[in-house]
């Protein structure tokens, strides 16, 4: 990859890039099928001989499975077969989710269906396969399972106490992982501080609620010895490896196809026991087996996230300069670390990200990750960021309040200077280039602060309490192998693209990154059209098939544009160069004197049209005899891209939230929201803006409504969408999005990630806005979700 073009080597400056499809708001090619109901999600695929799986799930948080009697289930019309944990263990190996670079991390072996013990309410225990989903569910209802309920370990605070139930006795205790990052002299900084402020924050356990439930259709062809899996996943190549390894197959014998995916947000990048069970059952039965999680199953078995309690302290001097952060994070992750990314990453991110936007010297942050008998947690959109941002920005606002400094001024005094890069943060994160002050300035152009403050004062007189809150944030994108690969996980940080020209001059691009609605295929089309020099409509993008696309990691952690986009750009440029070599031979011209513009070979200097690409394609594919014998004519090029200089491409931004708190009911009304973010090169503003808005809504949802609530026995109480509330259109505010562009120098494209920015900052901005509204009433909330009950308790009303 050392011979990859640089802007200079191909005669381009960065300033040339916007004069193309890059940076333009063009519609996505995927949308017509989506608005007409002609997409193909996994559940829409119906092969012959298809059978359907349903699972009996544990009704207990912790229980021994004494016996399973399937006789009655087998008598239910349509039921074909019943599988227990022991049945599947014969064809499927268990896994353990740890990463070597997370020192001391431990977890227990997990089977697709447990052998003798269920460890969370909702864990799949027995599978019934039938000729319809309804019949399979009838079969599940007819299963007789004898249980011995066991005491459950639920509380994260008591998880490590000596008399607590140890969920996996072989591990010795309920500790999964702990890490402390320390820099400077924290004790001395606190001792010398002008003011010290502290608070305890809760981020409520919540979950992704993808509208399309997790879906899988696995088909084992005994004649060929091949497994084909239609899967609603973000990472088809990773899953190919997982299915092969667990089912004792060669990777080449497994094909994962992912057509349209109905939302992911990190929910669909993990290995789920029920999904592996489906693949194992397909192999055992030699026929296609389908499973689609219904809404109840989604709530109890999709990964949860953000179950954290964080105690934080901040030390400041008299001018408001931040001297130190001291943070203690504790999180519960369920009974198993989730394979293969592990469930320690979220806590680890909190350690890496707290204090992130600010220039300060002394830092201590500990995360303690413990097991509990609840649904497993793992990486969900903006992993750890909303938690770190809530703590950081909550403490910064409290310090500003204590010193009587305006929150905007407080940030101005402490944000890392825009000319300070490269910069290494106290926990060791390396920033190539951020724009906190430019983003703040841009935000202040958009937010009418004076008008809002005047309105706030006016409304106070009428007993109406409105608040304005801010939150600066950083976001980790474009991950290198330092995220997972160095820990031993077979998760690719590299991604590839193949771009080819067909005889009619049309372009086909195959990419290892995937589409779940972000617009991956849309931006790849723009990038390839730009790189080759053809109209957008001439490019077809194909993703989501391990058999045809170059190997890659898929779409997660904001890498689609930055990694997959760069691979596509480099392969498109390589194809263009190859086309020009052929064109030069055909036109008796030097390739360097030619260019491709909107599908035409032109003279570079005059842009005079010489030949359409369709003519070049006709000659190459049908009349190759007329070309010089030794002329290279492969009109297909593949390039892979991986970042090398920085472990992650950090981005930054700032949000503002304007709310009204009803002090009688405790209800929060979202009035308006602003976000300025810097994702480097913006490829399509239309897509980025609404993606950021969607991220904000997801952050607001977690901060206001969404909560996985358990009772004292470990039963999940919020298992319908009437109990677990998600943001709907009527409650959501109008959102204004602005951009600062600081392209990464690691790639020609210069793109960083944008998908998680909204979620990273929204909860903190909202919390600060609510507390700004409540300040004159001497009330404050720090426990998410900020429900009416919590706000009324803070006000002393209840």
């Amino acid at each position, binding site marked *: 990859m050392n011979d990859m073009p640089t802007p200079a080597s191909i005669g381009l400056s960065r300033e040339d890039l916007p004069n193309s499809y890059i940076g333009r708001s063009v519609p996505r090619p995927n949308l017509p099928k989506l608005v007409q109901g002609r997409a193909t999600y996994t559940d*829409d695929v119906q092969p012959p001989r298809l059978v359907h799986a349903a699972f009996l799930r544990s009704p207990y948080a912790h229980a021994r499975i004494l016996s399973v009697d399937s006789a009655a289930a087998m008598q239910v019309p349509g039921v074909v077969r019943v599988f227990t944990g022991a049945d599947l263990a014969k064809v499927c190996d268990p896994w353990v989710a740890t990463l070597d670079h997370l020192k001391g991390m431990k977890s227990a072996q997990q089977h697709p269906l447990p052998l003798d013990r269920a460890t969370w309410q909702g864990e799949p225990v027995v599978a019934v396969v039938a000729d319809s989903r309804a019949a399979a569910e009838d079969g599940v209802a007819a299963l007789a399972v004898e249980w011995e309920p066991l005491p459950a370990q639920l509380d994260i605070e008591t998880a490590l106490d000596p008399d607590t139930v140890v969920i996996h006795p072989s591990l010795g205790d309920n500790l999964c992982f702990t890490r402390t990052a320390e820099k400077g002299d924290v004790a001395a900084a606190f001792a010398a501080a002008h003011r010290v402020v502290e608070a305890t924050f809760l981020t409520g356990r919540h979950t992704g609620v993808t509208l399309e439930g997790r879906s899988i259709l696995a088909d084992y062809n005994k004649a060929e010895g091949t497994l084909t899996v239609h899967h609603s996943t973000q990472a088809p190549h990773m899953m190919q490896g997982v299915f092969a390894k667990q089912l004792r197959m060669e990777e080449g014998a497994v094909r994962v196809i992912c057509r349209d995916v109905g939302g992911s947000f990190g929910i669909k990048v993990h290995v789920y026991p029920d999904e592996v069970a489906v693949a194992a059952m397909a192999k055992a039965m030699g026929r296609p087996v389908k499973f689609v999680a219904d809404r109840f199953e989604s709530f109890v078995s999709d990964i949860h996230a953000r179950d954290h309690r964080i105690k934080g302290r901040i030390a400041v001097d008299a001018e408001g300069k931040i001297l130190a952060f001291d943070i203690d994070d504790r999180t519960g992750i369920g009974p198993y670390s989730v394979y293969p990314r592990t469930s320690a990453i979220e806590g680890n991110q909190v350690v890496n990200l707290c204090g992130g936007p600010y220039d300060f010297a002394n830092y201590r942050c500990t995360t303690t990750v413990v097991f509990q008998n609840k649904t497993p947690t793992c990486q969900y959109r903006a992993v750890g960021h909303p938690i770190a941002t809530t703590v950081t920005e909550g403490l910064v606002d409290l310090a500003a309040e204590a010193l009587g400094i305006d929150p905007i001024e407080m940030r101005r005094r402490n944000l890392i200077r825009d000319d300070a890069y490269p910069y290494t943060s106290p926990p060791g994160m390396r920033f190539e280039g951020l724009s906190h002050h430019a983003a703040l300035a841009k935000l202040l152009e958009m937010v009418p602060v004076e008008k809002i403050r005047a309105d706030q004062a006016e409304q106070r007189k009428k007993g109406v309490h409105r608040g304005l809150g801010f939150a600066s944030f950083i976001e980790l994108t474009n991950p290198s192998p330092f995220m997972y690969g160095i820990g031993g996980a077979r998760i690719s940080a590299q991604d590839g693209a193949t771009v080819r020209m067909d005889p009619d001059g049309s372009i086909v691009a195959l990419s290892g990154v995937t589409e779940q609605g972000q617009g991956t295929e849309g931006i790849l089309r723009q990038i390839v059209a730009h790189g080759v020099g053809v109209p957008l409509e001439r490019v077809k993008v194909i993703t989501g098939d391990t058999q045809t696309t170059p190997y890659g990691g898929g779409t997660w952690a904001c890498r689609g544009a930055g990694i997959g986009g760069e691979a596509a750009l480099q392969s498109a440029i390589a194809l263009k160069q190859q086309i020009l070599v052929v064109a030069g031979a055909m036109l008796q011209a030097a390739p360097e004197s030619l260019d491709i513009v909107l599908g035409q070979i032109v003279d570079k200097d005059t842009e005079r049209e010489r030949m359409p690409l369709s003519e070049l394609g006709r000659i190459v594919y049908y009349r190759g005899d007329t070309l010089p014998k030794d002329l290279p004519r492969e009109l297909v090029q593949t390039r892979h891209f991986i970042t090398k200089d920085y472990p992650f491409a950090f981005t930054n931004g700032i949000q503002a939230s304007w709310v009204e708190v009803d002090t009688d009911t405790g209800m929060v009304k979202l009035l308006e929201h602003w976000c300025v973010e810097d994702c480097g090169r913006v490829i399509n503003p239309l897509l980025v803006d609404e993606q950021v808005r969607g991220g904000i809504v997801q952050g607001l949802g977690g901060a206001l409504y969404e909560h996985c609530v358990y009772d004292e026995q470990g039963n999940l109480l919020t298992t*319908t969408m009437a109990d677990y509330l998600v943001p709907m259109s009527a409650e959501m505010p109008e959102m204004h999005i602005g951009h600062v562009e600081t392209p990464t120098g690691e790639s020609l494209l210069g793109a960083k990630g944008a998908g998680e920015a909204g979620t990273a900052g929204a909860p903190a901005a909202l919390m600060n806005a609510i507390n700004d509204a409540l300040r004159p009433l001497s009330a404050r909330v720090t426990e998410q979700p900020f429900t009416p009950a919590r706000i009324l308790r803070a006000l002393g009303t209840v």
Partner: protein
Amino acid sequence: MTSRVDITLTVNGERVTRSVEARRHLIDFLRLDLGLTGSHAGCEHGVCGACTVRVDGEIVRGCLVLAASLDGAEVTTIEGLSDSGEMADLQDAFIARNAAQCGFCTPGMVMAAADIVQHHPHATRAEIREHLSGNYCRCTGYQAIVDAVEATLEARGGAAR
């Protein structure tokens, strides 16, 4: 559980006769019996709106209606709405504003939005938000969807503003 009911109804302008299980919901009838996979099952308890279809001129939740109750009914799904072209401008507005991301909610969202265009041509932004508040979208911030509906109403000459 296996008792069956014979029904004859019109779906997207075509007459359909089937014998359905009494417990069969409309959404499953459409998807599994008729192959109309444009409508989606999102929550199966009437909250998310992904299964929104038109029955006798009114939008309903396909997961809360039993197919057996629809003898003689007229059903329009996203496929029928699209083929008729009656909401092509609304669908184009969704495309122009990127008012769909993963697209799983989109057919139901378009059916609910079409109901606004059809029955509430003077709806304000707040009224559009209210009318769509039974349709869950996890990807967008809803703003592009509201923009698309508002633009359609304006272009049709009905919007309030």
